[in-house]
């Protein structure tokens, strides 16, 4: 049984978005992912981390924590912040819903996390922060053989 764990903590600076998704992608290489599965994970992490910068901290400096755990062939990801929180999660996860339409935000972040990962859950307390949980199973595929 494979088990591995990674914890990253960094400032909510836009420049760290690429760092975070690349680090998570590198971490899950041991699962021998297909290129398309790897790309799904990178995109989902990018969405979650960008939400921390743009929404949770609104451009102010805060800490983003990304934790990853590998258990057998499954990757669990937890992205948390201590920012402003989401007032209405049901609304926030709807496709195309955005609180910042003027900034060319698509409102598709949560939809992408839901679609690209196998499991997705978001918890939030206003004024305390938000935690996003996502997981994905990796099967051995011919693509990588």
């Amino acid at each position, binding site marked *: 049984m494979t088990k591995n764990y990674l914890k990253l903590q960094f400032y909510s600076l*836009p420049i760290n978005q690429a760092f975070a998704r690349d680090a998570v992608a590198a971490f899950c290489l041991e699962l021998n992912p297909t290129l398309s599965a790897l790309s*799904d994970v990178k*995109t989902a992490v990018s*969405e979650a981390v960008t939400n921390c910068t743009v929404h949770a901290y609104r451009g102010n400096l805060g800490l983003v924590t990304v934790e990853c755990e590998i258990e057998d062939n499954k990757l669990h990801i937890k992205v948390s912040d201590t920012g402003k929180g989401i007032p209405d999660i049901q609304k926030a996860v709807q496709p195309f819903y955005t609180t910042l339409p003027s*900034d060319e935000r*698509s409102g598709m*972040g949560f939809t*992408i996390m839901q679609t690209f990962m196998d499991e997705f859950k978001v918890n939030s307390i206003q004024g305390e922060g938000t935690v996003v949980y996502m997981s994905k199973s990796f099967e051995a595929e011919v693509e990588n053989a």
Partner: protein
Amino acid sequence: MTVTGYMREKILYINLSGEMDECSAQDARAKCDKLIEENINAKRVIINLSEIEFMDSTGIGFLIGRYKKASRLSLPLFVEKPNFAADKILNLSGIYSLIPKAE
């Protein structure tokens, strides 16, 4: 992300390359809009995505922003050659009904 453009047979081609995320899109927006404004005599605009190595939902907002810009100048906008991952996101968003693929 880098932005380059050229005119050929009255078509403005805009090539985007690198990684498209919230951080990298900021400069690229202004550069793209400048190219469109400088070439309003074009018949249409084609944004080439073949060298985009990564894209998250920023790409959707980015393309809709350029679509609005081009529409104000009555220029039809197309995209071409998104890689597999970019195509997956663009398909999910339904953006191809606004901005069709050129091929």
